[in-house]
């Protein structure tokens, strides 16, 4: 059994469990799946700075911070106790595309050649950590949600603005990977 759990989980198992989070949260206590909201609550809790957008009772929404705390702990548990000794296997074509961009493809979940502290104070690090993170935080809030709030929760509830947002998430991603990324890697 543990052997089976250690292997990478197939998409239909992962998709089903993620999908079931929607009714789980709704039925546990009328909560709506939406992870980027946690970033807003963090702002409201730590640095509201009299900005009207952050002036609300964040304590009422604290379940969301428990939830993301759980996601972090889940990452610890899965990596410490359930990790796959083989490492990640990605498509050959992606490997060769990345190698063409001088990215060393390793067996980790993320390439150590980019995501390490040594790169933090380089131009590349600035793009990957600071600018990338800023886009995620700014973009999701401007869009009113992220992959969980719009794509999963919004589409589950048949909300067309969520479909529009999801298409734009994908459009941004395609543009980055196919057009801007080669330039980014030349930095």
């Amino acid at each position: 059994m543990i052997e089976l759990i250690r292997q990478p989980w197939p998409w239909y198992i992962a998709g089903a469990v993620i999908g079931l989070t929607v009714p789980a949260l709704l039925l546990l206590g009328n909560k709506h799946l939406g992870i980027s909201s946690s970033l807003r609550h963090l702002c409201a809790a730590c640095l509201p700075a009299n900005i009207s957008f952050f002036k609300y009772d964040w304590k009422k929404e604290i379940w969301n911070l428990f939830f993301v705390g759980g996601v972090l702990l889940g990452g610890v548990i899965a990596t410490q106790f359930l990790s796959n000794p083989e490492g990640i296997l990605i498509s050959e074509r992606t490997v060769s595309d990345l190698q063409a961009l001088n990215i060393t493809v390793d067996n980790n979940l993320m390439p150590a050649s980019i995501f390490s502290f040594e790169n933090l104070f380089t131009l590349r690090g600035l793009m990957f950590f600071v600018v990338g993170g800023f886009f995620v935080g700014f973009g999701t809030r401007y869009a009113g949600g992220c992959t969980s709030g719009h794509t999963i929760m919004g589409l589950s509830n048949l909300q067309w603005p969520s479909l529009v947002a999801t298409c734009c998430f994908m459009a941004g991603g395609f543009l980055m990977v196919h057009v801007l990324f080669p330039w980014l890697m030349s930095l």
Partner: protein
Amino acid sequence: MQKSKDEFVDVSPVAHPVECEAPNDQIANETLIGSNIKYLITGIVFGIVFVKAEIISWYRIQEMFRLHSFHMYGVIGTAVIVGMISVWAIKKFNIKTAQGETVIFHDKQFHWGNIIGGFIFGLGWAITGACPGPLFAQIGSGFLVIIVTLLSAVAGTWVYGLFQQKLPH
């Protein structure tokens, strides 16, 4: 100088609820630890799936945007279908919450942020290989440098809050 009453009216074109986009709709009172521990546990399950299905992997996101693998499309597609059926069932059979309350759904109102913000998020998603959820799981997986990315994402949210009234919606 005298201010007319109208100046105090919120002119924001976005009808932001008092709380947030995903408000807590439970009526019954909640205790800090006792009521919230179940969301911590749900989060743990969510985080384990993120890691085990390699959704938090930067490589998987690259693969997805290069259309080299079905994996991520399969995960998201299945999640949406399971979510849709669940929401439909909750509405159809009027399934109540554990507290016996009616489940409340919110309609999302379209605004230009869905498009502009969505596009900006997409750019960031492809660089960092993470949406907000996976950021937390990546940190848990031991990629501590992602704490910087997370702080930057919080900063991005804060800057949005600062300029919210000035941005087109």
